[in-house]
């Protein structure tokens, strides 16, 4: 196993190299020019002088062929330097670091909550499959799935931030922290973050429930009719324990795969919800960077996503051997 992991990590580094190389090529292939999209280009009064454009092009290394730029980027990376953002006027590492906390707060809690809800929902659906209550719940979930998040977000904002304004249930309309956050006590900070996170997390979560619970249901149905479930029943094991312990354990391979697939989403955030809730997350950053063709920032983000993706897959693969003893990597 350990040799497998080491081999995977080495291969992962190679993959990473390939991915970044390829993506860098793609980035440079994208139409659009980081200098031409700058706002200054559209300013009716002050505009960028052609000489300045040439000069900055040189400075940003845009005159080099893309593969040369890539290797320059790589060289810097090996020194632990992600370069400087074209648009944010800061080091890429700094820009990303500023967003990580906010993004994780949103995505991680949403991921946890959605699994915490979806697993019982899926199990419940398995237990009651085909009955009216299960049908109702799943239709509701599908309804939520098709409800656009911007509609839900607005409705929740109107309800909690406007209608309930002044009551105990009031929730902040936007932002991650309240005014003067830095002056708050630890508990106050926690409460403040919590209140700000409720609505975005809710919007982030509800849509995924249908998918996860349906996924769990599908896999459970496969397992629930196996003979060993009958054995467990013969032992007198309670129904829920059978579902949760005996059957659910056998659906772990797809579930672990799914979680592995979701891992990179932890850092990708959501553009729409971040915009609506004024949440300083990674989704906006990524989108903005694409919009502005901010290659260094994009590369920093993609490197991070890629690492996370690879780690997610590796973890999933390792977990296979844990959740199913028949799988081995020797």
């Amino acid at each position, binding site marked *: 196993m350990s040799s497998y992991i080491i081999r995977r990590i080495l*291969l*992962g580094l*190679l*993959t990473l190299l*390939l*991915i970044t190389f*390829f*993506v860098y090529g*793609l*980035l440079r*292939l*994208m*139409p*659009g020019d980081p200098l031409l999209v700058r706002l200054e280009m559209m300013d009716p009064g002050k505009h960028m002088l052609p000489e300045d454009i040439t000069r900055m092009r040189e400075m940003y290394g845009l005159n080099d062929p893309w593969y040369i730029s890539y290797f320059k980027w790589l060289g810097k990376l090996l020194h632990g330097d992600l370069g400087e953002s074209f648009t944010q006027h800061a080091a890429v590492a700094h820009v990303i670091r500023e967003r990580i906390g906010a993004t994780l707060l949103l995505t991680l809690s949403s991921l946890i909550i959605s699994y915490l809800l979806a697993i019982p929902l899926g199990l419940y659906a398995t237990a009651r499959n085909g009955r009216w209550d299960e049908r109702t719940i*799943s*239709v509701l979930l*599908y*309804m939520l*799935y*098709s*409800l*656009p998040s*911007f*509609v839900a977000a*607005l409705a929740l904002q109107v309800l909690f931030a406007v209608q309930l304004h002044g009551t105990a249930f009031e929730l902040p309309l936007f932002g991650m922290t309240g005014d003067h956050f830095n002056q708050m006590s630890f508990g106050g900070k926690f409460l403040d973050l919590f209140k700000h996170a409720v609505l975005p997390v809710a919007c982030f979560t509800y849509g995924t429930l*249908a*998918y996860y619970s*349906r*996924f769990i249901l*599908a*896999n459970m*149905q*496969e397992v629930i*009719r196996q003979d060993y479930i009958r054995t467990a029943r013969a032992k007198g094991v309670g129904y829920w324990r059978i579902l949760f312990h005996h059957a659910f354990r056998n659906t772990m*391979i*797809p579930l*672990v*795969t*799914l979680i*592995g*697939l979701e891992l*990179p989403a932890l850092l990708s955030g959501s553009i729409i919800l971040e915009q609506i809730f004024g949440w300083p997350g990674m989704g906006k950053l*990524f*989108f903005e960077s*694409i919009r502005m063709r901010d290659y260094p920032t*994009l590369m920093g983000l*993609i490197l991070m*996503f*890629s690492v996370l*993706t*690879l780690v997610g*897959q590796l973890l*999933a*693969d390792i977990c*296979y051997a844990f959740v*199913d003893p*028949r*799988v081995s990597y020797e």
Partner: protein
Amino acid sequence: MSIGPNITPPLADAPAADPQQLETSRGFWAETWLRFRRRKLAMVALAYVLFMACVALFSPAIAGTKPIICKYKGHIYFPALGYFHRSWENPIFVTDHFRNVYPAKLKESDPESWALWPLVYQDPQRRVRADEWPDHPANPTRDKGHPNSLNLFGTTRAGVDVFAEMVHGTRTAMLVGFVSMGIAGAIGITLGAFAGYLGGWADMLLSRLIEFVMCIPPLVLILALIAVLPHPTIWHLMAVLGLTSWTGIARLMRGEFIRLREADFVTAARAVGVGWFGIMFRHIFRNGLAPVLVPITFGIASAILIESALSFLGFGAPPPNPSWGALLEAGRDNLQMWWLIAFPGLAIFFTVLAYNLIGEGLQEATDPRLRQPGN
């Protein structure tokens, strides 16, 4: 029963056993279909999808401002076909200055003419203006286009009828979902199956490929493609969607194959001499279907939404192209106009529901343990 001293050797010289009462047996998939047919909800869902397909196919006959068929200056024309492709609408109507308004012009230019009109006189691409059709005022614009008897689902900001747009948008909605998920499913299942079953180096390579594709941000890829493709069309969009969204399916399939390749019945199949292809796709695949059905069914539905997001990036069909997603997008900017969200939202909901019911039905139908009559 012929159990007795004269045991008939089973092979070589085996006589064709009494073929009288042996029904021809159906294959696994035929039987799946048989069981599927018994699931009422799934069949209703399938009927819904087929209905939508019909709507898509006959959209110009349902809503449009061009006659389905007309006789004009002694010839028969099918101007409504112009909704599928502009060149299918006869140029004579341009030459004769119809300016895309048929009812009055037909009579004016040729009093002899007659025409068969679509069910609803509304256009998916433009606003219907006053006096085009008897007693038909101009479509309301701005936020005034509440659903009414003439505009069943209301109108957009520009006065385009939402009902017509949705009817014609069905085409894209259906096509994008099926084609893109078809591609994704085919690639994902095949590669996942190979990676999981073969293991070893093949798995190492294919898994790296999966990771590689996973790490490419679709947005970047799409924008880069715009540079390469001079005129990206809806087909390109479907291809890109398909080519980027297979990774999850592949991973899930791979997981199932890893789990099942050690199963005894697989060993048994190997012992019988079944080749890798047979083992993978006859033996393992049907047993590992459950986890991939879910992403595929959801994928078909969500492709509808992605399509609109992408055509907004200038990828895919150009703007007057009617699409559910585009309506939702328009509604997003103006939530007062609830009908822009409600109707496409409902359509998407029903589609999600239908695909999922079909998926559920399919999954249950493929499980012979659930074989029981009348259920």
